[in-house]
């Protein structure tokens, strides 16, 4: 499990196994919280509901081959997720100290890595449904949308989406939370820890992303 942020949508739809490694020990888990959240931002809610439906439709489309699904997904990602913002975020404080050239190389490696990670999970997906239940405005244009995902292995799962409005006026997802665990935040802590432990060597992190961290 991990927090491969660029393809947040897919992973969250493949809850709970992929997302809940924080709970894999014998911690108590609360049931899904009642969907009592107020409707803070209807545009953000509509965004999540519409995009989730598109993604689920692709995942459930039995007429598509796995290769076709992968291709469709790569195209969807840029519409659904704010990849540049996520890329910048996961570097944490190191974002401010690397050169533009290093950033460009990291962004490219991160995108390929995230695509690969999520695509390996495509085949594992089995039909689920998502229903938006409410939203909370953190600040204007920065909203957490709550949803309930049903039809997976476990019971219904609350999935929260952090969506941010870009300069083009459209919302895009930057993070997703299941059982309290935010993917992009976890990803950031993973990358920052690796950088901390290697004196901020961004090239080492890029190399790990390219070869697959498990072999790094």
């Amino acid at each position, binding site marked *: 499990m991990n927090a491969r942020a660029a393809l947040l949508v897919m992973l969250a739809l493949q809850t709970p196994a992929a997302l809940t490694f924080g709970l894999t020990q014998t*911690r108590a888990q609360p049931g899904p919280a009642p969907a009592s959240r107020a409707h803070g931002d209807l545009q953000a809610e509509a965004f999540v509901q519409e995009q989730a439906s598109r993604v689920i439709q692709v995942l459930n489309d039995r007429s598509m081959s796995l290769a076709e699904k992968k291709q469709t997904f790569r195209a969807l990602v840029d519409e659904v997720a704010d990849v540049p913002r996520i890329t910048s975020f996961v570097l*944490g*404080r190191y974002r401010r100290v690397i050169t533009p050239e290093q950033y460009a190389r990291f962004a490219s490696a991160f995108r390929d890595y995230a695509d690969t990670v999520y695509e390996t999970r495509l085949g594992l997906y089995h039909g689920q449904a998502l229903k938006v239940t409410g939203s909370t405005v953190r600040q204007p244009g920065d909203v957490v949308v709550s949803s309930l995902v049903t039809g997976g292995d476990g019971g219904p799962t609350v999935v929260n989406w952090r969506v941010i409005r870009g300069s083009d006026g459209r919302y895009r997802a930057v993070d997703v939370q299941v059982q*309290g665990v935010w993917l992009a935040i*976890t990803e950031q802590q*993973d990358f920052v820890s690796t950088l*901390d432990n290697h004196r901020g060597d961004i090239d080492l992190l890029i190399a790990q992303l390219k070869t697959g961290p498990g072999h790094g």
Partner: protein
Amino acid sequence: MSLYSTALAGVLTTTLAAAAAPASAQVGAPSASPATSERTPQDPWEDANRKSFLVGGAIDTILVRPAAVLYQRLTPRPARDGVRNVTSNLGEPVIIINRVLQLRPDLAVVALSRLTVNSTLGVAGLFDVATGAGLAKKGTNFGQTLSRYGVRAGPYLFIPVLGPSTVRDAAGRAVDAALDPFFWIRFRDDGYFLGARAALAALDARSRADPALQDLKRTATDPYASLRSAYLQNADFLDHGGKLDVQSLPDFGPEPAAPTSTPAAPTPHPQD
């Protein structure tokens, strides 16, 4: 495993990072960030924890995971579900006690009802009929009871075999074991019963966690940091009763295409 050889350096940089860093590629101590998500002050014993993590990983690879995989292969799904239901049902008394201590009689009644229904209609807990009757399991433990009385989680702890925890929650686990009536009731072969029950619960938990843990191993650049991050976020979520505090979330910053704080503008993000 080479990832962890410089763990000590990580502790030092994390602790000492205070001064502003030069805009250079090799930085030991970058400037402090307003994003609270980056720091792990909850892990003051990171060096020792990382060693435990390595030991735990080795034990897991050699012993625990093979046993869990074998268990999964040898037993059919309905049998595993039954085992899970039985061990879960045997855990209800501890939940009831903790709910009483938490002054949550409503949830104590839910757990008591589950225990009663599943132990009778559910054939000694083999089937979870209570969930189907609208009495879904709401687990808890003594760590959460302490949390309810204002005891903070304390430093992060990684304990081999038991996994990620905090000082409070590890102590809570010990208390939970002592609160368990089965720990005190004496009957024939009670030692075997407790051992078998613990082993089955552990096998079940480990085999269920396997896809997630394998994924972690495969994809995280620092599995220790990823697991710690997820555990602490989840623990915080449970301490707040699953409520979301959006104001505590880190800033995502301005749109990266138009940075204001970087000395030089980055090249645009390549779109494949």
